[in-house]
C-alpha cells in the first residue's frame, strides 16, 4: 500500500468537477471513540497499543465503507509519506509523529479512521463544499457500524469517554474550511474571529491547531462536546457558517465595487505572477491561488476552473511537491518544482475579467 496511490487517485477535494463551492472548501466531521477495557493510547503500554491497533484495523477493514481501503501503519511509513497524509488532513500531526498509530482510509478518501491517536479511534468524514448533514449522516452510519463490532467506552452520565475532557460526551468535532479573502481584504477578519470565539467556536488556520491562515483559509469548529446533542452542535455551527458566507459575500462585493479596476488588477496580477514565476514559495502560491479562487467565485474567471485552484492549493504543499518528484528536495528545489506545476496547470487559463457575481 503506498501513499503514491493516494496522490494518484482522483478524489472529490482535488478533482471532481462540480463538487467545489464558493467560500466553503470542505465540511468535516470527527468522532472520538475508545474501546472498553483498554488504557487510552497515551497511557497504554506498547503491547496494548499493538493489540488495540490490530483489533481496530481488523474490524474497520471488514466494513463495506472500507472495502479496498488504504491501511497505513505510521511506523512503516517514510517521513515524507506521513507528511503527505498530514497535508491532506487524512491524519493528524500527532498521529504522524508517533510509531504506533495507524490510519484506515477509504478508497475515495472521504472517510478515514485514525487508530491510536489521542483516542483509540478518531472517525473522520470529509466532503468537498458545504454538506453538513450529508457528512454527518455518513459519520453516524460509520459510528454505528463500528459500535456494532467493537465494544465502545460509554457512560450514561458522560457519554462517549475520551482521553481528554475537551472531547467527552458526543466526541464530535464538526468543522468547515472556509475561504475568506473578502473579510480579510476588508479588514474585518479579527472582528469576525472574535465573535466566533465568544460564541463557542474555534477558528484555526489551514492545517489546524497553531497554524497560520495561509491563503485566507480558516477552519471553524465547535468546542463544546458535552451537554449538547449532536443535532444542536451541528445547528450551531451551521448557523454561523451561513452567516459567515453571507458576510463574506457582502465584503467581496463591497471591496470589488470600491476598488473597481484595482480589484480586477489585483487578481489579474496574481494570475500573471503564478503563470510566469520560476520559483514559488508555499506561502506565496497559497496567497496568489486565494486570489484565483476569489476570481472563480466572482465570475472573473470561469467557475469550472475552481477545482484546478483547489488541487494546486493541496498539491503545492511541501511534502506533496516532493512526493510528486519522488525525492526529497531543498527549499529552492521545492519552489522550482511548485512553480513548474502551477505554470503548467494555469497555462490555458483565460484572462481575468470583471466580476459578474
Amino acid at each position, binding site marked *: 500500500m503506498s501513499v503514491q496511490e493516494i496522490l494518484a487517485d482522483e478524489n472529490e477535494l482535488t478533482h471532481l468537477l462540480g463538487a467545489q463551492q464558493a467560500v466553503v472548501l470542505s465540511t468535516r466531521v470527527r468522532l472520538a471513540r475508545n474501546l472498553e477495557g483498554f488504557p487510552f493510547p497515551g497511557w497504554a503500554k506498547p503491547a496494548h497499543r499493538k493489540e488495540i491497533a490490530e483489533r481496530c484495523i481488523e474490524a474497520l477493514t471488514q466494513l463495506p465503507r472500507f472495502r479496498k481501503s488504504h491501511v497505513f501503519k505510521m511506523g512503516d511509513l517514510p517521513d515524507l509519506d506521513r507528511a503527505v497524509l498530514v497535508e491532506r488532513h487524512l491524519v493528524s500531526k500527532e498521529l504522524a509523529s508517533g510509531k504506533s498509530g495507524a490510519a484506515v482510509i477509504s478508497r475515495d478518501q472521504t472517510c478515514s479512521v485514525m487508530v491510536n491517536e489521542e483516542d483509540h479511534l478518531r472517525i473522520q468524514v470529509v466532503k468537498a463544499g458545504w454538506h453538513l448533514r450529508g457528512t454527518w449522516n455518513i459519520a453516524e452510519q460509520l459510528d454505528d457500524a463500528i*459500535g456494532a463490532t467493537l465494544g465502545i467506552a460509554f457512560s*450514561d*452520565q*458522560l*457519554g462517549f469517554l475520551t482521553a481528554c475532557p475537551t472531547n467527552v*460526551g458526543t466526541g464530535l468535532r464538526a468543522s468547515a474550511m472556509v475561504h475568506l479573502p473578502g473579510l480579510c481584504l476588508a479588514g474585518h477578519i479579527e472582528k469576525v474571529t472574535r465573535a466566533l470565539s465568544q460564541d463557542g467556536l474555534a477558528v484555526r488556520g489551514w492545517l489546524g491547531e497553531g497554524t497560520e491562515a495561509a491563503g485566507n483559509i480558516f477552519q471553524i469548529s465547535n468546542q*463544546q462536546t458535552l451537554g449538547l*446533542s449532536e443535532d444542536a452542535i451541528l445547528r450551531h455551527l451551521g448557523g454561523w457558517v451561513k452567516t459567515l458566507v453571507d458576510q463574506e459575500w457582502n465584503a467581496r462585493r463591497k471591496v470589488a465595487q470600491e476598488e473597481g479596476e484595482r480589484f480586477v488588477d489585483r487578481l489579474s496580477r496574481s494570475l500573471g505572477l503564478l503563470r510566469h514565476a520560476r520559483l514559488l514559495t508555499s506561502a506565496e502560491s497559497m496567497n496568489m491561488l486565494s486570489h484565483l479562487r476569489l476570481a472563480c467565485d466572482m465570475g472573473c474567471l470561469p467557475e469550472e476552473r475552481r477545482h484546478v485552484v483547489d488541487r494546486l492549493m493541496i498539491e503545492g504543499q511541501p511534502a506533496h511537491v516532493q512526493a510528486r518528484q519522488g525525492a526529497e528536495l531543498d527549499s529552492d528545489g521545492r519552489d522550482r518544482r511548485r512553480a513548474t506545476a502551477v505554470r503548467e496547470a494555469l497555462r490555458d487559463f483565460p484572462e481575468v475579467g470583471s466580476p459578474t457575481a
Partner: protein
Amino acid sequence: MANPLKCSVCDAVATVHLTQIVQGKVTKVDFCEACAAKGGAGDAAVFKLADAVNAVTPAPAITCPQCGFTDVEFRRRGRLGCPSCWQVFGVALGGLLTKVQHEIQHVGRAPAGTVPVGQLRHRLLAAQVELTAAIAAEDYETAAKLRDEVARITTQLDTL
C-alpha cells in the same frame, strides 16, 4: 568577573541553584553537583527546600485501580489513563468539566444497540416544559400527546 556562588553545604563552586518562595518569602540555595546529587544532607535550608520540592510533586491522592493512572499524572498530562478513570476521577473532574464544557450531563447519541439514555432524559425535560406550556395555553390536544410521551419515556427510563 564576580565571585562564583559557593555550595550551601560544602563551599565548593555551586552549579545547581534552587529558589524557594513560601508565602512571598524567597529562599535561595546553591549546591555543587555532588551535594545536589546527595540531596545536601545536614543543612537546615536544604531540608526546607527538600520539603518544598516534595510539595511540588505530592504523593498521588487518587489512583485508578484499572490502569494505575493517578491524579498527579492527570495534572501533568491533562489526559486520563483509561475509560474507568472517568469513574474514579469523576468528582475531582467536575469543576474542570464545568469550566471546559459548561455542562456535566451527556444528552447525545449512545453506542449502536444500546438505549440512548442521555437523549431520553433530554427529551423528557423538554417534553415536561412543553406540557406545562400547552396546559397554560389550553391546548389540550397537544397536552394529551405530551403527557403520553412523558409517561412513555419515564417508564422506559425506570425499566433500565
